[in-house]
């Protein structure tokens, strides 16, 4: 299926990637080629087949619901492009 410009704009918005209007058509062509490629799967009959959600044949492990690590906010936030007092900062979201 060919993706149109409106679909690309919708995807880019969901993915939070800025795509300018003059880039939309190039992305539509580009992504359509890949979607067309993956649509080969339409040929496969999957009636009664369970989806494979993971590889491991062992159950997911459980552990006690207890804090096991932490207490070093400065280390955790040390890579923040902007941070203050052991917190992350973002542009104002509440007026």
């Amino acid at each position, binding site marked *: 299926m060919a*993706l149109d410009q409106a*679909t*690309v704009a*919708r*995807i*880019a918005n*969901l*993915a*939070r*990637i*800025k*795509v300018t209007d003059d880039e939309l058509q190039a*992305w539509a062509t*580009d*992504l359509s*080629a*890949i*979607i067309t*490629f*993956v*649509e*080969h*799967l339409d*040929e*496969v009959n*999957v009636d009664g*087949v*369970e*989806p*494979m*959600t*993971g*590889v*491991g*044949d*062992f159950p*997911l*492990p459980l*552990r006690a619901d207890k804090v096991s690590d932490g207490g070093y906010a400065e*280390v*955790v*936030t*040390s*890579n*923040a*492009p*902007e941070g203050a007092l052991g917190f*992350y900062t*973002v*542009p*104002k*979201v509440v007026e």
Partner: protein
Amino acid sequence: MSGLTDLTIAGARAGLDSGDFSARELAQAHIDAMAQHKALNAFITETPERALADADASDARRAKGESAGPMDGVPIAMKDLFCTEGVRSTAGSHILEPFVPPYESTVSGKLKAGGSVMLGKANLDEFAMGSANITSYFGPVTNPWVAGGGDNRQRVPGGSSGGSAAAVAARIAIAATGTDTGGSIRQPASFCGIVGLKPTYGRCSRWGIVAFASSLDQAGPMTRTVEDAATMLQVMAGHDPKDSTSAPYDTPNFAEKLRAGVKGLKIGVPKEYRVDGMPAEIDRIWHQGADWLRAQGADVVEISLPHTKYALPTYYIIAPAEASSNLARYDGVRYGLRVPGKDLKEMYENTRAEGFGAEVKRRIMIGTYVLSAGYYDAYYLKAQKVRSLILRDFTQAFEQVDAILTPTAPSAAFALGEKQDDPVQMYLNDVFTVPASMAGLPAISVPGGLSDEGLPLGLHLIGKPFDEVTLVQVAQALEEAAGFSARPAGY
């Protein structure tokens, strides 16, 4: 002391143990090689001081009669997808350019605790997305191999672990770490004439490895011999409570049957891998591989993996879907690049537009699309079901055979600039490696010979889940029969 850079892990250990040279001398020889071959662009961050400090610690241990293990004192390259404490870890991306992890990934930590000497962080495709190492924000890696016959075009090293493969092939590092999501260890190993082993999914911890597609990503060794791959995997593998998908199984001695031969083993050759338009030289090396195993007493039989041709389309739904989710974390808030905007949403959008390269954006957008409302069932759920069928093909085949032999890649290393305009053409590089990834199976690429142009071609073996012992056993037999001794001119 150029001989020092020709050593295998096994050879280095023997020389260090007998006192022929020190770990510091060994490290210095490789640091010199790294400086001499800077033009390959195999490293994003070089860490020569760290390497010398690691080497001195190794020498000090040996002086006391102690050893940290079979890689104590061995100089390695670390793919820059592994978070290394205090050493910048970029994933080949602008968005992580300034990132210095305050923690160490489990696998790199095991190698560190095992005494290995880290030369630097190896270049890779951005977020491990690529098959030619041309998507790195830090520039492409050059394959040390060039074709014969006056064709001097620069060749790609394969990807995504292209810097790792180039470093090992160019004798800059004795071994390197790689990660493999759809072929990212095996295809560059094939292109650079080295050994690359992707273990069973769950064998090595993913904790602290920058995530691309979590149900596929797996770390593994890249070395110059099969024996070295087994040795390095021994150090890297093991259950890790910090990764819930890490297998809670004991680690076997991977070299247990290294030289047991293949007599009596059954090797499958899948007829569906004989794809249209396969170059004659690929078909030839594949037949040669089968003949080598047969000559050593293996029973080589044709098998069928009917859903082979659907593996790549399935991969290009599942891997981007997982990537779009994993890469949502790069938002300019907690680490890496931040590009301001008029509000929070615009800051996200600007940061991600500037921080990600074209291939990464492509995969995030494909992944977002196939997971979006109205399309989820048609694409993502469908792909998960086809993935079940791909796994079933292998499960049935392994009721019959002990290992499967295929070519690693459909071509030798191509020239920089080729296949760059059409993403689907680039994706086809992984046509032989992706099926094993989808099924979580262990697989290895071993150098089989040279192409008509004089470039290396790999042979690919796929094993049963958690049976790397047999995989290594068969790989060793192939390696011995191939007797691959060619090396890139000038290295």
